[in-house]
């Protein structure tokens, strides 16, 4: 698990005051070697109660969501609503590179912990705030949920079947993408800060990051062709053919974007099914040439795919440079031979001495590889390390802080 390797963000200190909007951001930074201290309310973060749990037993250290999202972080407890808690926070922030928070706009400021205050003690500090709608504007105090951001951000309108209600993706993707934006943006702000000595406030709106992620269905396209993008099943509107096709034992996904790939596919259909019409030159060229014949071509393709297993269509198709891929269940993805060959999944041993398989690195750096430094922390696991060893709070004082509920 924790090998002796250099890490890209070694020495970067991050304080995380984040709920589900920012947990993945902290994880991205921590898994690249930053020291990310997750600050939870005394008693623990509410996200420790997000199901499902390991062995379906609710417990603050067993939420699979919490375990995944908080790898590599250290964990402390702190009540920032009390003056003593605020004082400790200010001390921590004075030595941090980045504070990551997801509280309502203005809330940290109301506690005397806003950007203007924190930068006085630490001019290079970057404060990154992730909120549903941003720090400014008429909706800044609106309540958010991942599904709300997916809705206003335009993701739901263009997901799923034509005749179905709009639907959201699995796993709170609006929040995950906002976190990814926040991580990249924070690093840009830190890059500038390292040169200039001046930090800044990074203002991430989940509505905006969602609209950005879904931009190919956004205003640029609509203003160009006048057609509002809408959900339309599994095919992509601009790629013909594209979508899912039935095989003997499951489904495959196909996408054709290049004329050469269409030729290869048409040839295979002709070889296998004897269909001559598919070779008609009117179907050749870019996708726009095939747009009017979409449904017809789908039938030709199904005639081909339903004769084979998923694996057969996948590998023979790819041998012919046609973009066929299986439509995988989670189980199939977990057992994918390519992912296995790349050792993508990794074993992590955590606090309960359990060994669990985790998804691994989203990218591979040759000098400073991604790595899980430690499993997700238990409640207040690093209070001693952070408060006593690093801040010099004495043993008695620490006990007093615990007793009065400051930590």
């Amino acid at each position, binding site marked *: 698990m924790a090998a002796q390797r250099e890490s890209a963000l070694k020495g970067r200190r991050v304080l995380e005051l984040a709920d589900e909007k920012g947990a993945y951001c902290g994880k991205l930074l921590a898994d690249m070697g930053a020291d990310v201290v997750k600050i939870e309310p005394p008693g623990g973060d509410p996200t420790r109660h997000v199901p499902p749990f390991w062995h379906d037993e609710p417990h603050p250290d067993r939420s699979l969501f919490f375990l995944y999202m908080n790898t590599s972080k250290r964990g402390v407890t702190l009540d920032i609503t009390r003056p003593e808690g605020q004082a400790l926070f200010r001390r921590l922030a004075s030595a941090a590179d980045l504070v990551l928070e997801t509280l309502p706009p203005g809330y940290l400021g109301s506690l005397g912990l806003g950007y203007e205050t924190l930068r006085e003690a630490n001019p290079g500090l970057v404060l990154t705030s992730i909120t549903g709608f941003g720090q400014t504007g008429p909706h800044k105090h609106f309540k958010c949920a991942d599904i709300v951001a997916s809705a206003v951000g*335009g993701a739901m309108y263009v997901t799923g079947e034509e005749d179905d209600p709009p639907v959201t993706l699995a796993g709170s993707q609006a929040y995950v993408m906002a976190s990814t934006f926040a991580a990249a943006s924070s690093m840009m702000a830190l890059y500038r800060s390292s040169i200039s000595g001046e930090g800044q406030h990074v203002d991430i709106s989940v509505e905006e990051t969602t609209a950005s992620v879904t931009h190919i269905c956004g205003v640029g396209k609509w203003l160009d062709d006048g057609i509002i993008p809408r959900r339309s099943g599994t095919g992509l509107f601009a790629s013909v053919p594209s979508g899912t096709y039935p095989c003997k034992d499951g489904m495959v996904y196909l996408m054709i974007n290049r004329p050469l790939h269409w030729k290869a596919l048409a040839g295979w259909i002709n070889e296998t099914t004897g269909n001559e019409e598919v070779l008609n030159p009117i179907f050749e060229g870019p996708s726009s040439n095939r747009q009017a014949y979409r449904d017809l071509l789908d039938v030709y393709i199904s005639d081909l795919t339903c004769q084979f297993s998923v694996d057969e269509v996948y590998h023979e198709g790819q041998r012919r440079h046609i973009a066929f891929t299986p439509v995988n269940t989670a189980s199939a993805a977990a057992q994918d031979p390519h992912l296995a060959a790349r050792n993508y999944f990794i074993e992590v041993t955590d606090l309960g001495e359990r060994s669990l398989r985790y998804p691994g690195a989203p990218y591979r750096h040759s000098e400073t590889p991604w790595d899980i430094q430690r499993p997700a922390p238990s409640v207040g696991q690093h209070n001693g390390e952070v408060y006593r060893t690093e801040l010099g709070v004495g043993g008695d004082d620490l006990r007093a802080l615990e007793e009065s509920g400051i930590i």
Partner: protein
Amino acid sequence: MLQALEGVRVIEFSAGMAGPWIGRFMAYCGAEVIRVESANHPDVTRQYVPPWAPEMGTQPQLSPWFTDWNAGKRFIALDLTQPKAVELAKRIVAMCDVVVENYRSGVVDKLGLGYPELRRVRPDIIMFSSSGYGDSGPYNRYVTWGPNIEALAGLSKLSGFPERECTMTQYAYPDASSALHGLFAVMCALDYRRRTGQGQYINLSQLETTVSVIGHVMMDQLAHGREPQKLGNRSLHAAPHGCYRCKGEDSWCVIAVSDDSEWESFCNAVGEPEWIGDPRFATLSSRLEDVNELDQLVESWTASRTASEVMTTLQEAGVAAGVVQNAEDQMHRDPQLAARGFFEEIEHLKKGKVIATGIPLGLTGTPGRSGRAGAAVGQDNEYVFGRLLGMSPNEIRELVEAGAIETA
């Protein structure tokens, strides 16, 4: 204050969205980004035929996605099958901090532009390489597009209504997601280099990145060997939580009530205080058990109201609710996006000005801005070869005649 990435120079050997969008962000933040194109491999956005005037044929500068993915960059064109062109490319690399490439796995190595080669011209170069399956493994030469990855990673089968076989987006989600992860990965490498002077090679597999973004969902499979529950618009820890029909054609509002105090606010807001204490709905766990009935009750209220009314009424009561917006709604009926200036007007070389989706990096101290859109192939040949590399007009002309440098 200078822009965040002022002084950083990037060269792209890229295609589509997954590579180019990274360069778009970096250019937006002040980096100088040079994109290399080749006539024998025209980018998909260069093959755009205007749907509003198909008789115009291919228009290489007009695609709205060309704007989305490439505004603000410099453009050169090289025939990379010619050794002289590869030499030129390497001379530019020597002046760059970062290389971004997302050609098919193995192509840059074949061209003589792989990491070991580029390291020779610039030892601290940061090279980022992205493809569907990564640079190793049994299927790494396979052809994939974003939606293929949605299917392969399990996202399509994990998402959507339980009665549907699979669910897909229309926005090639893995392309956008992997570009954002790539941007972060590059910034990490820049931070490391700032500290140590060392560059490195970064490889990204879009499949692996996509599994990572649904990693918390996959944990149920990995820990228990069971297929994670497909939830549609529902939640395991909030109710009501869903997408409700409103007045009008294809008009919807989502609502998410996460605890009992919000449930109380909700009931008062919709004028049904007797629902508060109703034993079927009084607690979160009882609401989670009776979701079908609950959703029907909620929809009986929303169905006679516009989505906007539903959102406003509930938000005023402190309940999370949001209109399911499309592109037109976002542009014309979203006061928040308007107040924040989210949509950006960008100078376009052929169209004068275009309006594009914003880049919400939120850098309030060093705000980004988009450079010009609609560049032609080889638009900046003169600038890059003449000014940056200091080549004489004769040198450039010879290479154009030889076809090593290409023009529009």
